[in-house]
C-alpha cells in the first residue's frame, strides 16, 4: 500500500517541468524523498525510488553510489520490472571500487541461467558494462553455455559480452574461444556481425594473435553481402595486413571487387581507407581507391567531401601524386565553410610543400590567414612555421624571403603564435649568418611600430626582435633610430623581462657606437663635430630613456638600467673631453674595448644533449641534500634587508661565494653526526618530528665521485656540422642557399618519449590476452587439423575452384620470414623453417598454408 502515494518517475519528470522553485531545490527535495523511500521494505517502493534516482543521476548529475546495496536488493526481486530497474541502476553506477560488487555474482549467475531470455540479456548487459576480473572469472562457464544457446537473441548478446570478459580475465579465452570461432560460421547475419565486431576489437589490440583466423575471415569477405560485416572485416584485414604483408596481396582483389560493385558509401569509404593505409603497395588497388576519392571530393555532401579529404591525407605520405592530382579540389576546400574540411585541406596543402613551391603556397596561405577567423588563422600560421622549420629549415632556400615572411606573420591581426616565431627568429639568427642583415632589417621594422607594443601576443616576437637587433647591431643601418625605437615611452606596455632584454640591447648598441667612435678617434686625429654631436645625441637619448627605469620595481630591469646609466656616466666624461685620446689609458676607451670584446663572441646554437656531455668536476656534489645550509648560512643571510641597491648586491655576491664553500664543507663533514644542537628552526622541528622526515641521502655510500648518469665529456666543437653549400645553383639570379649550422640533436623528441612510455604501459595489459588467444588457437588448430589432415587436399581442391587464391598444399613455397610455434606438429607438409629471432617475448604464430 505504501507506494500508492509514492511519486513515480513520470510524476517526477512532470513535476520537474512545472516546478516554480529553483531546479536545485527541487532536486534536493526529490533526493530526500528518495532516500526515505529507498529504505522501505517493500520492493516496489524501493524500485520506484531507485528508478527516480537513476534518472536524476544520468540527467542531472546526482551521485547515486550510496544506493549500491539497495540496487542489489531490488535486483533480487523476481519481478521483471524490478529487475530491469535494478540492473539499470547497477550498470550505471557500479565500478571497480564499489564495495558490494562481490555480492552481485550469485545474482548474475542465477539470471544468466534463467529461462527467460530477457532476464538473461539484462544480466549479460550488466556484466558487459561493469565486469571485473573476479566476475569474469566466476561467470565465464555461464557465458560459455550461452554462447551455444539455441536462441539467437541470447547468442548475439553473449557474443557481445565476450569482449569484456576476455579483456578482464584472459584465461576465459581457453574456455570460450572455440565457441566464438564456431560462431564465425553461422548463417545468422546478426550473430556474425557481432562476432566479427568482437574480432575487430581483438585485432586492434593484437593483430598477430588473430592472424591464424585469416582464412575464415577471407571466406566471409568474399561471400558476405552484409555491409556491417564487411566493414568490420575490412578493419580486421587492415590490421592484419600491416603485420603480414603477404595477406595484402590476397585481399586486394576482393576489396577492389567490393569497391566497384557496392552502392553503399560507407563500404566504399572503408575499402578506400583500408587500401590507402595498409595495402599501399598494390598499385592497381591504390589507383582505384584514388579514383573513388576523387568522386567523393566532387560531391556536394559535406560529409563525403570531408571523408574524401581525410582519406587523401592518409594516402599522402606514400602517394603524393594522388594529392597533386587533386590540387584544385584541395585549394577550393580551403575556403569551405566547414572547419573540418578547411583543416584537412590545410594539412594536405602542407604535405605538398617542396623547395620550389614553398613561397607560392605560403603566399596563398597568408592571404587566407588574413581573411579567416582566428582559429583557422593560427592553424595556418603554425603549420607553415612547422613545415618550414622542419629538419633545420631544410626546405628554405631563400632565407631573406623567409625572414620577411616571419615579419609579415607578426603583422597578421589574429596571430597568437608569438613564441614559435620568436624561437625561429633567434634560431635563424644563430644558425644562418647570411640572413642576419635581413633579420636586423625586419626586426627594426617591428620595433619601430608602436602599434605592435599593445598586442600581448606579439610581445615574444618583439623580444626576439630586440635581441636580434642588439646582437647583430653591426648590420644595422641606423643605430640611432634603433635606439629611439627601443626606448620609446610605449615600451612601458611590455612585461619586465622583455623590458630587460630591450635595455640590454640598448647597451649593446651603445657599446658598438662608442667603440666605433673611439676607434675612429684614434685612427684619425681630428674629430668632426657632427660625429661628436651624433654620439652625444645618442648617449643623451639613451640616458633620458633609461633613467626612469632605474627606479623600476622589477630587479632585473632596475639592475640593467643602472648598469647602462653607470656606463654612460663614465663614458660621458671621455666624450666630453673631446681631446687627444691617443693615450690609451682613458678609462672609457678600455672599458668599451673590453665590452666590445665580450659582445663580439658569437653565440651559437647548442644541442639539446649538450649538458649531458659535460663531465661533472670533482668535488661538486649535485645530489646532496641542502637542508643543513640553513644552519650554516643562517647568520649570513639575515642582513639582506637594506635599501640601497649596491649594498645588497655586494652581500648577495659574497653570500653566494660562501654558499659554495660551505656546501663543500658540508659534504666533507657529512659523515659527522647529523643531529647538531643548533638554534635553527629547521633543526628543532626535525628533532621533534624526526620520524616524519624522509631519510636524507647524505650517507649513501654510492653518491661519491662522479655519478653514473654523466657520461664522460665529448668535445662539443667537433659536433657542429656545417651544412655543405647547396650545389644546385639553378639560375644565376637565384642566390645559393646559405650555410645553416646544424647539430646532432639525437632524439629531438620530448614529445615522442612520453608517447613511448604510455605505449609501453598499455602493451603489458594486452600481452596476456594475446598470449591466451594464441595458445587457444594452437589447441584449436591442432585438434582440427589432425582430423582434417587427410581430407585436407580435397578440401583445398574444392576451395580452389571457388577462390582463385588458395594454392594446393604440396607446392614448394619460399617463405621470407617464418614464425615458428613451440610444440610444432611434424606432418609432412611443413618443411624446414628457419628459426627467426623475434624480439618480442610473445609466442610466435604460424601462418596457415591455406592462404598462400
Amino acid at each position, binding site marked *: *500500500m505504501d*507506494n500508492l502515494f509514492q511519486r513515480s*518517475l*513520470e510524476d517526477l*519528470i512532470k513535476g520537474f*517541468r512545472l516546478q516554480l522553485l529553483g531546479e536545485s531545490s527541487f532536486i534536493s527535495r526529490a533526493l530526500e524523498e528518495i532516500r526515505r523511500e529507498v529504505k522501505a521494505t517493500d520492493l*516496489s517502493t524501493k524500485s520506484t525510488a531507485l528508478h527516480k534516482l537513476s*534518472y536524476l*543521476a*544520468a*540527467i542531472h*548529475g546526482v*551521485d*547515486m553510489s550510496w544506493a549500491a546495496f539497495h540496487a542489489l536488493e531490488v535486483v533480487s526481486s523476481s*519481478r*521483471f*520490472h524490478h529487475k*530491469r*530497474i535494478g540492473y*539499470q541502476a547497477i550498470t550505471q553506477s*557500479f*565500478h*571497480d571500487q564499489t564495495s558490494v560488487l562481490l555480492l552481485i555474482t550469485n545474482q548474475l549467475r542465477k539470471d544468466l541461467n534463467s529461462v*527467460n531470455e*530477457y532476464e538473461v540479456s539484462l544480466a*549479460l*548487459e550488466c556484466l*558487459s*558494462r*561493469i565486469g571485473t576480473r573476479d566476475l569474469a572469472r566466476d561467470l565465464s562457464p555461464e557465458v560459455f553455455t550461452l554462447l551455444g544457446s539455441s536462441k539467437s*537473441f541470447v547468442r548475439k*548478446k553473449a557474443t*557481445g*559480452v565476450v*569482449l*569484456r570478459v576476455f579483456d578482464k580475465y584472459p584465461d576465459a579465452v581457453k574456455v570460450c574461444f572455440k565457441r566464438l570461432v564456431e560462431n564465425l560460421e553461422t548463417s545468422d547475419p*546478426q550473430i556474425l*556481425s*557481432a562476432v566479427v*565486431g*568482437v574480432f*575487430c*576489437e581483438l585485432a586492434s589490440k593484437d593483430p598477430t594473435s588473430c592472424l591464424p583466423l585469416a582464412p575464415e575471415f577471407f571466406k566471409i569477405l568474399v561471400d558476405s553481402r552484409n555491409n*556491417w560485416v564487411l*566493414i568490420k572485416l575490412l*578493419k580486421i584485414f587492415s590490421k592484419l595486413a600491416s603485420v603480414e604483408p603477404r595477406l595484402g596481396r590476397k585481399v586486394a582483389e576482393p576489396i577492389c571487387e567490393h569497391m566497384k560493385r557496392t552502392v553503399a*558509401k*560507407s563500404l566504399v*569509404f*572503408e575499402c578506400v581507407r583500408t587500401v590507402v593505409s595498409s595495402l599501399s603497395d598494390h598499385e592497381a588497388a591504390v589507383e582505384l581507391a584514388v579514383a573513388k576519392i576523387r568522386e567523393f571530393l566532387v560531391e556536394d555532401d*559535406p*560529409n563525403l*567531401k*570531408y*571523408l574524401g579529404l581525410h582519406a587523401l591525407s592518409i594516402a599522402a605520405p606514400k602517394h603524393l601524386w594522388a594529392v597533386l592530382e587533386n590540387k584544385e579540389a584541395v585549394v577550393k576546400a580551403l575556403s569551405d*565553410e*566547414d*572547419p*573540418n*574540411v578547411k583543416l584537412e585541406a590545410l594539412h594536405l596543402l602542407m604535405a605538398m610543400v617542396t623547395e620550389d613551391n614553398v613561397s607560392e603556397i605560403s603566399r596563398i596561405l597568408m592571404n587566407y590567414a588574413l581573411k579567416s577567423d582566428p582559429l583557422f588563422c593560427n592553424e595556418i600560421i603554425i603549420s607553415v612555421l612547422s613545415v618550414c622549420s622542419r629538419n633545420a629549415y631544410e626546405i628554405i632556400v631563400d632565407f631573406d624571403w623567409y625572414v620577411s615572411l616571419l615579419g609579415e606573420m607578426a603583422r597578421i591581426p589574429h596571430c597568437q603564435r608569438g613564441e614559435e616565431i620568436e624561437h625561429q627568429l633567434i634560431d635563424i639568427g644563430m644558425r644562418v649568418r647570411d640572413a642576419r642583415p635581413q633579420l636586423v632589417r625586419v626586426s627594426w621594422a617591428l620595433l619601430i611600430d608602436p602599434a605592435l607594443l599593445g598586442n600581448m601576443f606579439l610581445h615574444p616576437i618583439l623580444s626576439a626582435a630586440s635581441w636580434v637587433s642588439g646582437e647583430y647591431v653591426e648590420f644595422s643601418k641606423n643605430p640611432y633610430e634603433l635606439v629611439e625605437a627601443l626606448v620609446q615611452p610605449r615600451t612601458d606596455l611590455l612585461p619586465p623581462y622583455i623590458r630587460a632584454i630591450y635595455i640590454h640591447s640598448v647597451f649593446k648598441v651603445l657599446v658598438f657606437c662608442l667603440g666605433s667612435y673611439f676607434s675612429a678617434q684614434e685612427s684619425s686625429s681630428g674629430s668632426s663635430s657632427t660625429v661628436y654631436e651624433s654620439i652625444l645625441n645618442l648617449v643623451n637619448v639613451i640616458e633620458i630613456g633609461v633613467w626612469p627605469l632605474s627606479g623600476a620595481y622589477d630587479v632585473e630591469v632596475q639592475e640593467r638600467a643602472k648598469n647602462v646609466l653607470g656606463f654612460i656616466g663614465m663614458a660621458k666624461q671621455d666624450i666630453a673631453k673631446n681631446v687627444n685620446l691617443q693615450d690609451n689609458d682613458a678609462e672609457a676607451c678600455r672599458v668599451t674595448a673590453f665590452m666590445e670584446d665580450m659582445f663580439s663572441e658569437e653565440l651559437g646554437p647548442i644541442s639539446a644533449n649538450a649538458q649531458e656531455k659535460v663531465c661533472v668536476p670533482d668535488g661538486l656534489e649535485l645530489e646532496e641534500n641542502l637542508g643543513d645550509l640553513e644552519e650554516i648560512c643562517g647568520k649570513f643571510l639575515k642582513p639582506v634587508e637594506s635599501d640601497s641597491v649596491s649594498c645588497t648586491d655586494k652581500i648577495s655576491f659574497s653570500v653566494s661565494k660562501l654558499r659554495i664553500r660551505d656546501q663543500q664543507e658540508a659534504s666533507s663533514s657529512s659523515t659527522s653526526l647529523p643531529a647538531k644542537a643548533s638554534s635553527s628552526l629547521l633543526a628543532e622541528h626535525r628533532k621533534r618530528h624526526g620520524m616524519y622526515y624522509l631519510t636524507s641521502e647524505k650517507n649513501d655510500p654510492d653518491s661519491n665521485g662522479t655519478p653514473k648518469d654523466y657520461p664522460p665529456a665529448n668535445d662539443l666543437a667537433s659536433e657542429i656540422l656545417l651544412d655543405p653549400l647547396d650545389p644546385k645553383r639553378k639560375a644565376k639570379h637565384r642566390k645559393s642557399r646559405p650555410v645553416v649550422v646544424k647539430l646532432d640533436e639525437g632524439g629531438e623528441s620530448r614529445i615522442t618519449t612520453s608517447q613511448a612510455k604510455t605505449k609501453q604501459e598499455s602493451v603489458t595489459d594486452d600481452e596476456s590476452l594475446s598470449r591466451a588467444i594464441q595458445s587457444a588457437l594452437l589447441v584449436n588448430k591442432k585438434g582440427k587439423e589432425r582430423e582434417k589432415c587427410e581430407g585436407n587436399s580435397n578440401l583445398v581442391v574444392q576451395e580452389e575452384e571457388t577462390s582463385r587464391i588458395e594454392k594446393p598444399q604440396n607446392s614448394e613455397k619460399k617463405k621470407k620470414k617464418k614464425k615458428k610455434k613451440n610444440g610444432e606438429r611434424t606432418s609432412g607438409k611443413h618443411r624446414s623453417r628457419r628459426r627467426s629471432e623475434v624480439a618480442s617475448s610473445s609466442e610466435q604464430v604460424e601462418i596457415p598454408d591455406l592462404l598462400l
Partner: protein
Amino acid sequence: MIKAVMMMNTQGKPRLAKFYDFLPVEKQQELIRGVFSVLSSRPENVSNFLEIDSLFGPDSRLVYKHYATLYFVLVFDGSENELAMLDLIQVLVETLDKCFSNVCELDIVFNYSKMHTVLDEIVFGGQVLETRSDEIMKAVEEISKLEAASNSISLVPKSVSGWRGGR
C-alpha cells in the same frame, strides 16, 4: 567501440546520456556540457563529424545529427566506420519513430525507460548489435509486455484480495 550515446536539446539539456566506460557523474556532466558547446558553434550545412580528442581521449570521434530541437550524438573510436555510425543514428531515430509514431522531444522526455530499452537493443556494451529496426521493435515490444505483466500484479494489493477472498 562506441564510447557514449547522448541526446540533448538545443539548449544543452541532456535528454539521455549513456557512457559505456565508467565515469563519475561530475565528469559525465562535464562531458555533456563540453559536447554541447562544440555542437552549438557548428554552422548549418557542414559535415557531421568532429574529432574530440580533448574531451574523450585519443582516437575519439563524434558524429551528430540535428533533428528539430534535438542533437543525437554518438562518440566512438577508430574501430567504427564514420558513415556507418551516421546510419546508426538513422536507425535509432527510425525505431523511435515506430515506437512512438512521429516522435518528438516530449516523447523522449517522458519515456525515459523505454528510450533505454530501445538503445540497449541497438548498442550492447559498446558494440553495435542490431541494425534492423523491425527486429529491435520486436524485442522492445516483448520487453514492454513483460514489464506490463509484472507491473500489473502490484496494482491489486494483497490485503484487498485477501479481504475479498476471506470474507
